[in-house]
């Protein structure tokens, strides 16, 4: 039962992510990425992490992706520039693009190599899971209290920075 769910969610995540890369219209890319995040949230539930699953939906799919969608619709530039980006296979493209494709392949090969070299952990998870939100919250506000406070400063800086960067320059 959980195995089937893993393969279904994993398949949806991979397929949706591939389509995000393959789409030419950014609106479809954003919507497909939301589908991919939903599948990942299901995987977090399978990993006994309901807190992460819920904030994945609320923060990622709900807030960050809506921000992306808002910007895509605000810019009103749905198609990729066609005069620069002729439709061709990545390996047949001009120099930098072929180099990028080779880098991506090299990264995939290295990840695969690293995964085959790690000793395999057969069978299911042996340890009892920590899934209670209370335990996570207690750890967050005692052991990781400093990191939590620094995070609040980061959010403030990002907020001010976004407002300053996106502001229209007023004529002097």
């Amino acid at each position, binding site marked *: 039962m*959980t195995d089937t769910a893993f393969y279904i969610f*994993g398949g949806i995540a*991979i397929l949706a*992510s*591939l389509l995000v*890369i393959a*789409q030419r219209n*950014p609106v479809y*890319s*954003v919507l497909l*990425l939301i589908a*991919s995040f939903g599948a*990942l949230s299901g*995987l977090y539930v*399978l*990993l*006994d*992490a309901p807190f*992460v699953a819920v*904030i*994945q939906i609320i*923060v*990622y799919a709900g*807030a960050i992706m809506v*921000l992306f969608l808002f*910007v*895509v619709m605000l*810019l009103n*530039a749905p198609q*990729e*520039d066609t005069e620069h*980006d002729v439709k061709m296979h990545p390996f047949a493209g001009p120099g930098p*693009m072929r180099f990028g*494709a080779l880098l*991506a392949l090299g*990264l*995939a090969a290295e*990840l*695969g190599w690293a*995964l085959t070299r*790690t000793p*395999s*952990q057969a*069978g*299911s*998870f042996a*340890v009892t*899971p*920590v899934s209670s939100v209370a335990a*996570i919250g207690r*750890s967050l506000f005692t052991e990781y209290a400093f990191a939590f406070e620094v*995070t609040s400063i*980061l*959010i403030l*800086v*990002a907020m001010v*920075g*976004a407002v300053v*960067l*996106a502001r229209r320059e007023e004529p002097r």
Partner: protein
Amino acid sequence: MVALDHYLVLSGILFSIGAAGVFLRRNLITILLSIEIMLNAVNLTFVAFGRALGSADGQIIVFFVMTVAAAEAAVGLAIVIGLFRHHESLNPESFASLKW
């Protein structure tokens, strides 16, 4: 039975897809979306390892990664808006000059 290995392989595949998107696409919005795919692949690894070790730390690190991702998306999209206002383009090739 599905174990840690399966999650690591899935996460590796997702990270490779995200990296391929950054290297191959010529649209700033899609490149930012690919970065989000990579961040999520890493999050999956953290949660899977946390589950395998029976510790809450993996989930807490995911919380911080999500915060940083939100900050990154806000600032990144603000920069994209600024660039689009100046160049009317989302192609990274057209932002080759340091000054306008």
